[in-house]
């Protein structure tokens, strides 16, 4: 039986894809509110540049490269799914999961180093924003990796290939959020 999300098209797009766009829309408000709050506090408190100077630009830059590359493998997986090549789509999703794993690992080393230096979530408002924003983003990366593993397992068997595109849209959004987090937390010092 074909799931209703695959075929139903009252709005002009399959319901499953519409649902993912709604998720993305709600995530814009979540991350948008957080980043807006950060920006207004950052402008109001010039002293925060003192704290921002301690974030590691090279680690942030490397992680941006990793996420951009994982987005490439996600969109190539989508292309493979359109060509009905489930095993290839699964392999490319596997690479995307690997990218997410590298991202989280780098972040873990980065946080460990910062915490050892005494910068914790309770140190001051800057570090509260830093750990909250980057932590919430990291949770989204982990959630994406888990969902992607489930989708890849099905895609490998040629099942529900339309879901490859859906998880890809979510993953690209997670990439987009990082594209803005990187300059806010690592570049503007």
């Amino acid at each position, binding site marked *: 039986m074909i799931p209703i999300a695959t075929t139903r098209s009252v709005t002009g797009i399959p319901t499953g894809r519409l649902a993912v766009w709604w998720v993305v829309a709600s995530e814009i*408000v979540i991350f948008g509110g957080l980043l*807006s709050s950060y920006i207004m506090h950052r402008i109001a408190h010039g002293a925060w540049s003192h704290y921002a100077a301690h974030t590691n630009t090279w680690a942030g830059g490397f992680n*941006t490269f990793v996420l951009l590359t994982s987005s490439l493998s996600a969109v190539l997986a989508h292309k493979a799914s359109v060509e009905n090549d489930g095993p290839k789509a699964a392999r490319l999703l596997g690479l995307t999961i690997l990218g997410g794993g590298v991202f989280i690992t780098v972040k873990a080393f980065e946080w460990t180093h910062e915490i050892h230096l005494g910068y914790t979530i309770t140190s001051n408002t800057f570090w509260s924003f830093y750990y909250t924003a980057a932590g919430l983003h990291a949770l989204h990366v982990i959630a994406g990796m888990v969902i992607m593993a489930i989708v890849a397992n099905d895609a490998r068997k040629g099942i529900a290939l339309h879901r490859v595109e859906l998880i890809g849209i979510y993953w690209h959004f997670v990439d987009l959020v990082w*594209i803005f987090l990187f300059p806010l937390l690592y*570049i503007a010092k």
Partner: protein
Amino acid sequence: MSEHAEHAHPNYVKVWAILVGLLILSILGPMIGIQWVTLLAAFGIAIVKAYLVAKNFMHVNVEPRFISYLLLTMLALMALFYAGVSPDVMKHEGSRWAKPDWVAAAAAPVAETLGEHGH
């Protein structure tokens, strides 16, 4: 199968290469030490990268127009939130209110002590 199959796929590797090039510029730009270059490198390039990802990887441009309107509405709500809240955060006094002295003190430049409790 997705209707996205109907549109031609862009050269994704080329788009990725452009994104990586922009990333390198956004890291090197601030090293010059000029404030406007830093701001342009940090946020101008971020907007361009976001556009490239949304257009070429998320394929927003081939979705029905209401998807773009949906996303833009959320961005407008974000701007509304900023416009409504930022005066309370960024100003120290208004027509009928003033922040207490300790708030201004907390916003002052910090000492070199690491991990101190200030805003």
